[in-house]
């Protein structure tokens, strides 16, 4: 498939006609059993640019990167690097030819020092032994080249995630500095850390490195990127200079239609919630605590109410939720469900009380990767029924068909292994897994993290609808706007302590929540 006409325009506006791409992909195709993940995708990276790769989950971004890094062999198309045709056969070879990748989850050895991590595999040697002083000196030099202040002799595990990511970049750049792929490097970084990362990216761009930047954050695209390639459903949507697109246009091109309108919390919904709040709560936690993870906290969740939990990463949001689901056991405090004391010592006990929990860690705590979409969907319901009362195959098929269409899960084939789905679609399967058990309280821990705008809006709408239908929701998210848009009340956590419960009466703003997080005002 040829690129759309916009390609030429963006090129002439942004990069001079005499410049040639350092990396060029033409007509790249990749098929998985039953799915065409990439269908004739082109991509051009010029030296000294930051190029965004954007698209919804399932659009083919991850697959394209895996083809580029040699994790998946492509089924068609060509790759040209610095004017020469290359065949990328594996990650190591990709690195040797000049394509380095830094992943969202850092792929280094936490037990080794920063210096060792930077130079592992290329250690300076003397008399056949590793020349330690030289190793540290070179590492320090490389770190200084990028204006970073990192103690290279410290073990990597003692560094923050952001620093670890920077170390991974230093390492990648030192190996080969032609093309650097950053796969969602910012999703677990805070604002300052992102700024630091961008400084480094800017410096590398000035040195002539072509950077392919994959992210879900629109702001960041406009902050740092020069051009953008947009994928949709495995096809190339277009290549643009970032200045030629407004944000709305960018999002529209990603999802291929009008952005789903998201209602703000309506007055009717507020009134209903206020009414429910007057009655008995569905769940009440009294001085619930677990040593080392969360100080005693009280929390009421009423029928049909969305309670948000806000706080910084590691402030105890997840820990609090895990106690309510019995995923961790509390040391003290009580839980009452529907006015009766409930000992939620295990997830199974919580499930019996119609409580459901979607973990923030999809891969490690949600998916059973080699099982199919259908099997993952029915797992919670089947576990609740016990082994002796199996759901018939026809019932399973029916449930799978229903929920795949209800949540628009793609690809819409129930027999695909779930690990072949994109993050957003995996998240929808996990949501459906719980929804089909008909829970009364749904605990969602970062349900929209790492998924694209389209799926994000769908999940937010779903939460609103469910609460309208009388389901209680505990909604945890690092994005305050999102928490605020959905929640009737917001519990604010700080340093493993719930410092306030704020009512979202229409005057609550992200700034006020932030101030509460910062100062820890008492309720």
């Amino acid at each position, binding site marked *: 498939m040829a690129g759309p006409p916009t390609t030429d325009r963006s090129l002439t506006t942004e990069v001079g006609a005499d410049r040639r791409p350092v990396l060029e992909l033409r007509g790249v195709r990749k098929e998985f059993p039953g799915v065409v993940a990439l269908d004739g995708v082109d991509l051009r990276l010029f030296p000294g640019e930051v190029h965004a790769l954007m698209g919804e989950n399932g659009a083919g971004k991850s697959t394209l990167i895996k083809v580029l890094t040699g994790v998946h062999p492509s089924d068609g198309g060509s790759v040209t690097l610095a004017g020469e045709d290359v065949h990328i056969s594996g990650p190591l070879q990709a690195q040797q030819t000049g394509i380095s990748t830094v992943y969202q989850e850092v792929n280094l050895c936490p037990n080794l020092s920063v210096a060792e991590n930077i130079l592992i595999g290329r250690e300076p040697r003397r008399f056949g032994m590793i020349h330690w002083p030289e190793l540290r000196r070179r590492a320090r030099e490389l770190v200084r080249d990028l204006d970073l202040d990192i103690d290279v002799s410290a073990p990597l595990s003692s560094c923050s995630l952001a620093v670890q990511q920077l170390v991974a970049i230093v390492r990648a750049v030192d190996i080969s500095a032609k093309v650097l792929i950053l796969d969602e490097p910012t999703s677990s970084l805070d604002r300052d850390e992102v700024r630091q990362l961008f400084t480094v990216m800017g410096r590398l761009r000035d040195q002539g490195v072509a950077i392919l930047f994959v992210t879900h954050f629109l702001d960041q695209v406009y902050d740092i990127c020069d051009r953008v390639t947009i994928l949709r459903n495995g096809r190339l949507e277009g290549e643009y200079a970032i200045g030629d697109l407004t944000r709305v246009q960018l999002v529209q091109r990603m999802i291929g239609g009008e952005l789903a309108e998201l209602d703000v919390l309506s007055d009717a919904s507020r009134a209903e919630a206020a009414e429910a709040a007057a009655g008995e709560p569905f769940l009440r936690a009294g001085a619930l605590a677990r040593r080392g993870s969360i100080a005693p906290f009280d929390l009421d969740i009423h029928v049909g109410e969305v309670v948000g939990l806000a706080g910084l990463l590691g402030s105890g949001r997840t820990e609090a939720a895990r106690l309510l689901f019995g995923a961790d056991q509390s040391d003290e405090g009580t839980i009452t469900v529907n006015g009766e004391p409930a000992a939620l010592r*295990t997830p199974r006990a919580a499930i019996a009380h119609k409580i459901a929990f979607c973990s923030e860690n999809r891969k490690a*705590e*949600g998916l*059973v990767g080699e099982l199919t979409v259908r099997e993952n969907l029915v797992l919670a319901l089947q*576990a609740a029924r016990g*082994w002796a009362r199996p*759901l018939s195959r026809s019932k399973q098929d029916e449930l799978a068909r229903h929920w795949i269409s209800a949540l628009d899960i793609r690809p819409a084939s129930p027999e695909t292994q779930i690990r072949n789905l994109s993050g957003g679609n995996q998240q929808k399967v996990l949501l459906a897994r719980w929804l089909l058990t008909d829970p009364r309280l749904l605990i969602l821990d970062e349900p929209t993290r790492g998924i694209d705008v389209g799926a994000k809006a769908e999940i937010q709408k779903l939460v609103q609808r469910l609460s309208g239908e009388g389901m209680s929701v505990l909604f945890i998210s690092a994005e305050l706007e999102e928490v605020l848009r959905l929640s009737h009340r917001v519990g604010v956590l700080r340093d493993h302590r719930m410092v306030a419960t704020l009512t979202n009466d229409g005057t609550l703003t992200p700034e006020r929540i932030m101030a509460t997080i910062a100062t820890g005002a008492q309720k």
Partner: protein
Amino acid sequence: MTKHRLFWPAAVLLALLLANVAFNHDFFAIRVKEGHLYGSLIDILQFGAPLVLVALGMSLVIATRGIDLSVGSTVAISGALACEHIATSASPAALSTVLEAVGISLVVALVLGLINGLLVARLDVQPIIATLMLMVAGRGVAQLITDGQILTVSSAPYKLIGGGYWLTIPFAVILAAVLVALTGLLTRRTALGLLIESVGGNPTASRLVGIRATGLLTLVYVFSALCAAVAGLMISSNVSSADGNNAGLWIELDAILAVVIGGGALTGGRFSLGGTVLGALIIQTLTTSVYSMGIPPETTLVFKALVVIAVCLVQSSAFRAKVNLRRPSSRPPLNPGRARNVEKHEVGA
């Protein structure tokens, strides 16, 4: 068709059988002699029956990410207990005596399986260590039961289990087939199979959806021990004696191999009982072939090892891809450890 997960095990089994014809033209012949079926194929089924059973139990254990090294010892203990009971009984040939002997063996196996299961499921001991204890101690226990002697019994009903015939078919084959079928029904007609695969595939996620992993884990180790006990009865019945030292020696390794050849992954998750049965039959065919092809006995183990390596390579999709796609532009030598890391990291990202 090659995509079907049982294609390669079945193809390998067929190839091994055909290879035998070259050495023995009557290999596929089955005759009826004195009302019994005779022939090489029947031998493979009959002598393979104990391995099929042990591998059956093993495949469920492996599906939960576990391993059961103690099955060989359980085979020995089970045979020793049964023979000891029959030998010391007043009427060794009575059906009731044999039933008692079988009952004792099965109950003891149940206890042994419970011990394994509780060590793994409750106390969180690594399966390889938990079952290694019984593997080592069990042989000693078997010898204690028979006072270190090879205990010989003479009991017609007992002989039936491993060496007798029913409707012209070896009784052991019928017994194994029935148990395989029952296990298939129990795992696939109920939700047991799905729950076991889920626990093996992702234990943390399984706990969070409310699956009672402790019970399931205990169950698979008990099941494995019971399978091994029945196999032990077959083996000792076939030779009408109990040999604490050699009965079921190394059968745990053959069983693990059978599961792997059948397509099961030691990392847990998906299991295939059909694949396991094919795997066990491949190993038994190999053992039979070694004799029928007249391979010198001192080289049999090496021969077996070579065939097993070949079988595993044929089944490895990575290996097949390498052979099929060997391009003129030779790829640089990959550091396998690193390549694997990257891929693991990437799956489902």
